């Protein structure tokens, strides 16, 4: 395989994502774990750029790093004396490891030709391999996303449902957070 600049970038971002993720689960200091989570999310944003989905990349940074990570940090601070705890492996790790293995297996079957060999033809998504010529891909622009959001043939109903979901999340959060004050 030829080592293109794209490939190098892909390896760097994958390393950031995986390495960050690994550090999140192994770090004993929960604040450091949160910082590594941001690193991992940043790597994902880079992967989105490589997939020519810049809108998703910007959203990834804006929402996940700029908002959700901040929320995570606030949640950490909200919990008294979390710093003093040494967080060790809890009892759930075998279940998590099993789930990971299953997910990995499914991805392997669906995304690579291995699936075809084991489960018969046309099982895997026919992604191009090194031998094939790259297929024509049309990249989605922000305008097209917007058109899809607001036309009847597109996703206008999911679009509104998202809003409903966000509102209920907001109301739910307020109710939970102010529980003690007996609203």
């Amino acid at each position, binding site marked *: 395989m030829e080592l293109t*600049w794209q490939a190098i970038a892909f390896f760097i971002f994958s390393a950031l994502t995986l390495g960050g993720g690994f550090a999140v689960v192994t770090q004993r200091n929960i604040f450091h774990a949160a*910082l590594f989570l941001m690193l991992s999310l940043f790597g994902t944003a880079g992967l989105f750029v490589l997939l020519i989905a*810049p809108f998703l990349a*910007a959203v990834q*940074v804006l929402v996940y790093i*700029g908002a959700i990570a*901040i929320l995570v*940090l*606030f949640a950490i601070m909200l919990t008294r004396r979390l710093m003093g705890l040494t967080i060790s492996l809890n009892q759930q790790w075998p279940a998590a490891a099993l789930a990971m293995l299953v997910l990995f297996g499914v991805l392997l079957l669906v995304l690579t030709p291995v699936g075809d060999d084991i489960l018969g033809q046309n099982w895997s998504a026919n992604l191009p391999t090194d031998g094939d010529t790259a297929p024509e891909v049309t990249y989605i622009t922000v305008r097209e996303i917007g058109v899809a959001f607001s036309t009847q043939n597109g996703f206008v109903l999911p679009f509104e449902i998202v809003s409903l979901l966000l509102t209920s999340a907001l109301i739910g959060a307020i109710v939970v957070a102010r529980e003690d004050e007996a609203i």
Partner: protein
Amino acid sequence: MVGIFEDLGFEAGLAAVLGNLVGVVVLATVFLLLPIFTIWVERKVAARFQNRIGPNRVGPYGILQSFPDVVKLLGKELILPRNVDKIPYLLSPIIMVAAVVLIVAVIPLAPTIIGTDLSIGALYFVSVGSLTTIAIVMAGWGSNNKYALLGAFRTVAQLISYEIPLVFSLLIPILLVGSLSMQTIVEFQDTYWIIFYVPTAAVIFLVSNIAEIGRAPFDLIEAESELIAGYMIEYSGMAFAMFYLAEFLHAFLVAVIFSVLFLGGWQGPLAQDVPVLGIAYLTIKSFIVYFAMLWVRMTLPRFRIDHLMAFNWKFLVPVSIVHVLVTAGIWSALPEPDLSGGWFARLGEEFPRMALNLVASVVIAVVSLRLLRQYAEQERQRLSEVTAMVEHKQYPLATTGQGAQSNVIVVGTGSGD
């Protein structure tokens, strides 16, 4: 730039990397050195506002004052306090400056001169700007100091709150132009600047951006009397200076971005043909906006934190949401004018759309300010009643309980350098 390296015989990919790197270094360094000048401007203007002379020893009008300051800072001890959480503590000033420098990448300086005209430029500006929040949390946490942590959390609460009206007011130019690309936004403004369509949105954008930088009157995040510089308290030497560098650079970049979004960027007579003129126009516009920001900074006293939050959530956010909805309604109801003619023809064609939007925007401003005034009068009335009762020794403060706190007026101490 890439072409030069290709001519020198580098392989195409490598040439792209080298060319980009050189371009970035030049662009970023130019902008990074700007604060050396803007700090002088700021000190001089601040001095004049306070009836002082300001720096006047080094160079003509003290213009070289920043250079000895830099040298002095280089000689200051870099203290790494005991008990700090080293990695976040040291990363924080670096991320802070880096996040601000990254904004430079999408600023269109002239018709042909732009770092890179990303298709999502405007969103990139917001996304990268949100990285400063992370730096502040890291500083607050890493410093292992109660004041730093308290300051950091206050700052973060302020920054995330003001990001909402900022983005809503940013949505309005995007809506008019129909693109997120910065260059397209500037090109749209070759007839009328966007500020003529939506002046209210422009004001909201500027105000929320000033809050986002944490400048007066929104500078209570570093309130020296209560928080002793907030999250920066444990920093010294150049590490401390980096926070200030980031602030000054960010302040100037906000002026530049404002000029790009609302004041037509590089647009001006002959700018299409002579790129240098475009840069000059953008610079002049940016410095005018920058001066306005300084004016605000030097004039208004500091907010109190509950007022700060109320001002955002109960005034700026609702007004900006209403503005987005009104402008969007007008824009989608009106037919697209024919913009194929010459400049004067387009000026005429565009006029009805512009005028209608302008009227709507001004109406929004007038109505919201009237509501605000009404509320203020009520508050003043209530307050004077309370004061009268206190004078007659009826002490309502003790009896009303909950309301007591909001009756106390605290006037900020203003800003000092």
